[in-house]
């Protein structure tokens, strides 16, 4: 007891000094900024030797496509993947739209409910009506191959990581890095190795989608109670028997979730791979966004959302039903189940038969169409004419009062001051190791020659995170305190979280036109659901006793929130901050496509034009490094508290 008291005292002093040292640090930074601003700001030189060297490296790679590492590795991998995609897409086309809709409906019927079956089949018909059936099938073909490869590679690795601490330790930092890597950043280096095309796009999608497959599988295996594994071992099971009879069956629902999450990740990436020649829905969307054709992008966006919904519905419940395959637990009896299965089979066969043989059922008839392009464009014009005072007012206020001054400060600051500040902040918040990582990553950004665009991106990220946190904490806290609000917010969050990142650009573009602010708005909308959810869960997790004791001593609702709920949900708030930073960064760089400038713009240019390749690759790396810096600073804040609490015990 006395030991605990002794341990508590220096810790209280430490925490106080943490806030103080951040203030002190900021004061020092301001003092240094005044004389030093304008010096060593590292403006962008598009003809920097590094960029030229990278360009010639790319030329050399293209000239050496017959080198052994292409002939024996990269080229066969790409061609094999592309071949698989062509094969699957070919089948999807052969089956015809009726065949596909019937198969999806039958899967829904057999594995979920008849309602889901009707809904997914209807959603696919709607996709056809939108006039993007062929593009959707191209995207679906890539999805199927990318997800299958992710699972084939990811699940065994996940199982291994679940059973071996050493593998888990080796894999975790890599997965962490992959998870904070914005989708964009993968593309440039991949293009260098695989060139542009269908196969490259699928490989990029696979790499992006693999982390949840590994992580969740490992989580599921680790979630099996140690005692149950011991019980199996104590009866003399071999390692293989433990895996097959205990760990995999008991992890089944988590592995089902892994499949679901892998699909959703793949879908958000497959659209972005349009940049490297993926074709499909992404291409339709990209082309429309490039010419600011909001109406045109809207149809493709709706099709993507519908595809996401279909895949999510079909797989989300697969993870639940397979968990309890017992007759008594289901409301459906064994006989009924058999009949349902037979009905599903009949529907699928009839649909395929029609789709393969009948021309009307094979190619989606173009006479029926339900395009939203014209009404949406009309709406956008109307908004431009009538609501411009609101949208541009908002945009101007945010730009001139927050974005511009912040960007001014960051770009005018000498690079060493920014890096030093970030490293010192990391040191205070997360400790020495995080500080070292942040310092090295910061200096690397400067060395890459893209310091200025990186500061522009940082400006947008800081602004976006600020807004996302304010909204997320407010809505999350409200939802945690009111079940009505929670009931309204949850489904909206669910829907928003299944949507691929790209889609968020459409409404932002419609409202604010192609500007920096558009990118930030899209990023904020993208990040809010995750932040809200983490905050709500955290605030909800605060013990009832703590709240009751505060209320019984006469606290107002606001005092309860401020003095009890938010401080006690601190860990979740920090996790929300971390997630917010990662998501905002990911989206802000995609915003480079719609006038977001900064690093994202250079990546797009690097993919589009050979002469900009070098700067694009540097920008892509800088995005990753920026992500590492921001993640280290914010993640440490949460993690460190955890360690302390464990030490207390």
């Amino acid at each position, binding site marked *: 007891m006395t030991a605990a008291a002794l341990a508590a005292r220096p810790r209280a002093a430490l925490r106080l000094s943490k806030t103080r040292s951040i203030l002190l640090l900021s004061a020092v930074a301001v003092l240094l900024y005044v004389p030093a601003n304008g010096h060593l700001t590292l403006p962008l030189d598009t003809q920097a030797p590094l960029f030229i060297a990278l360009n010639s490296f790319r030329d050399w790679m293209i000239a050496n496509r017959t080198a052994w590492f292409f002939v024996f590795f990269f080229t066969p991998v790409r061609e094999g993947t592309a071949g698989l995609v062509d094969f699957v897409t070919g089948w999807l086309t052969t089956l015809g739209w009726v065949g596909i809709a019937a198969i999806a409906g039958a899967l829904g019927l057999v594995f979920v409910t008849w309602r889901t079956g009707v809904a997914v089949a209807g959603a696919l018909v709607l996709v056809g009506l939108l006039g993007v059936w062929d593009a959707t099938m191209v995207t679906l073909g890539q999805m199927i191959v990318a997800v299958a490869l992710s699972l084939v590679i990811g699940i065994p690795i996940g199982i291994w990581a679940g059973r071996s601490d050493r593998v888990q330790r080796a894999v975790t930092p890599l997965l962490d890095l992959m998870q904070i890597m914005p989708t964009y950043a993968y593309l440039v280096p991949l293009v260098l190795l695989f060139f542009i095309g269908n196969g490259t796009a699928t490989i990029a999608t696979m790499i992006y989608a693999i982390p949840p497959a590994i992580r969740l599988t490992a989580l599921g295996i680790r979630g099996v109670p140690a*005692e149950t594994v*011991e019980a*199996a071992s*104590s*009866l*003399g099971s071999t390692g293989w028997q433990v895996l097959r*009879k*205990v760990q995999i*069956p*008991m992890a089944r629902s988590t592995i089902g979730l892994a499949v679901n999450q892998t699909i959703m990740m793949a879908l958000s990436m497959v659209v972005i791979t349009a940049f490297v020649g993926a074709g499909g829905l992404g291409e339709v969307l990209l082309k429309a966004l490039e010419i600011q054709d909001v109406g045109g992008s809207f149809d493709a966006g709706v099709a993507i959302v519908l595809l996401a919904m279909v895949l999510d519905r079909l797989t989300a419940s697969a993870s639940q039903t397979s968990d309890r395959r017992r007759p008594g637990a289901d409301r459906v009896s064994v006989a009924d189940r058999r009949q349902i299965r037979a009905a599903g089979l009949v529907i699928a066969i009839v649909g395929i038969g029609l789709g393969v043989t009948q021309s009307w059922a094979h190619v989606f008839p173009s006479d029926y169409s339900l395009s939203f392009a014209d009404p949406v464009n009309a709406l956008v014009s109307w908004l431009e004419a009538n609501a411009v005072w609101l949208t541009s007012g908002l945009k101007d206020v945010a730009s001139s009062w927050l974005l511009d001054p912040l960007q001014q400060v960051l770009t005018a600051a000498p690079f060493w001051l920014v890096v030093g500040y970030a490293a010192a902040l990391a040191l205070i918040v997360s400790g020495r190791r995080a500080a070292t990582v942040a310092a090295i990553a910061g200096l690397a950004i400067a060395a890459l020659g893209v310091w200025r665009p990186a500061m522009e991106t940082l400006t947008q990220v800081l602004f976006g995170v600020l807004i996302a946190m304010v909204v997320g904490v407010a809505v999350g806290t409200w939802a945690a305190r009111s079940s009505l609000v929670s009931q309204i917010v949850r489904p909206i969050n669910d829907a928003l979280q299944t949507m691929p990142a790209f889609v968020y650009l459409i409404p932002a573009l419609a409202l604010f036109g192609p500007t920096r602010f558009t990118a930030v708005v899209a990023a904020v909308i993208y990040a809010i659901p995750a932040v809200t959810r983490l905050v709500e869960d955290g605030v909800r997790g605060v013990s009832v006793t703590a709240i009751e004791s505060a209320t019984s001593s006469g606290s107002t609702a606001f005092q309860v929130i401020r003095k009890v709920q938010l401080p006690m949900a601190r860990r979740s708030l920090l996790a929300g901050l971390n997630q917010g930073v990662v998501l905002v960064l990911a989206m802000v760089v995609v915003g480079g496509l719609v006038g977001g400038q900064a690093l994202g713009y250079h990546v797009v240019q690097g993919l589009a034009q050979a002469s900009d390749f070098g700067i694009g690759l540097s920008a892509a790396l800088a995005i990753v490094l920026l992500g590492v810096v921001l993640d280290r600073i914010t993640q440490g804040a949460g993690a460190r508290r955890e360690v302390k609490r464990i030490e207390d015990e």
Partner: protein
Amino acid sequence: MTSTFPAPGPFAQARLAAGQQPSGETAISVKGLWKIFGPGEHKIIGTPLAELTRDELRLATGSNVAVRDVSFDVRPGEVFVVMGLSGSGKSTLIRCLTRLIEPTAGEVTFDGEEIGKASQARLRDLRRHRFSMVFQHFGLLPHRRVIDNVAFGLEVRGESKKARRDKAAQMLALVGLEGQEMRYPDQLSGGMQQRVGLARALAVDPDVMLFDEPFSALDPLIRRDMQNEVLRLHNEVGKTMIFITHDLAEALKLGDHVAIMRAGQIVQIGRPEEIVGAPADDYVADFVQDVPKSYVLTLGWIMREVRPGDPLDGPVYPSTTVIREAVRDVACSDSPIRIVDDGKLVGMVDRSMVLAAIAGTEPEA
């Protein structure tokens, strides 16, 4: 610390000495067993670090001693209980016996074979046929029916489906779970789930059964049922049992011998009456303080020698009788109880001695 009643009488002391002599036959023999968790696992034993206390060692090396130099013998067919509070290392100890946790040092000998030297294949073979274990939280497989849970051990050793289901059904009947075969574990109460765990352990027909706090997660009434169940099964199937618990009453009720563990070490091993009647140190004494002595101590423990002139018309009991069971006769008889073992009069117990035992005070000399 007040010394607790009663110091063993001269006769009892002689018996105590006899009890500690090795009886020659052992089912399991543990010698110098250590388990250290952490980076310094293999660098501590044999160095001065091994003399440090747990906390000191953790500060010095970051390693945690769970089991420290433990030795004991378990006789065939007995129930050997290891009792200790949480964190005393008892659960680690029982896992080290079959190497579910690999011990850091020491020997575990079973039937003349040193388990530490067994290959993985041999170890699996031992686990499949000779040992089985019952777990605190049951460790059942939620995706399998009760009968397939019980048959699991038979399945992993490759028995046919028919054979293992027949055997499993028998075992379920033995633990009183007929008719529950086709249900799933989460449809059963905690007590019933642990019966499934018990049946699973019995199904492989082991020589030794290991129990890791099997009843801690159960309600008190169900716990008592299950304790009686174990005693009944012990009488019926006669297995050697090693039983881990943190509940002293459970230890005294079930154990033929009880080992008390503290901070990874065994502080005392003895029959229940020895633990209660002659605690080895203040720690054990503190533990047993509230145990009603007359429920645990035997007449043999408190008896005195036969004196000339003792009336020989009192009631007759063997020395192994628990005091409580003789109370009624003592109350009704003016003559002292005669203690007779194997037809031979070995001692006497006066009324005052019984009362003193119930009151928990030293008898007058």
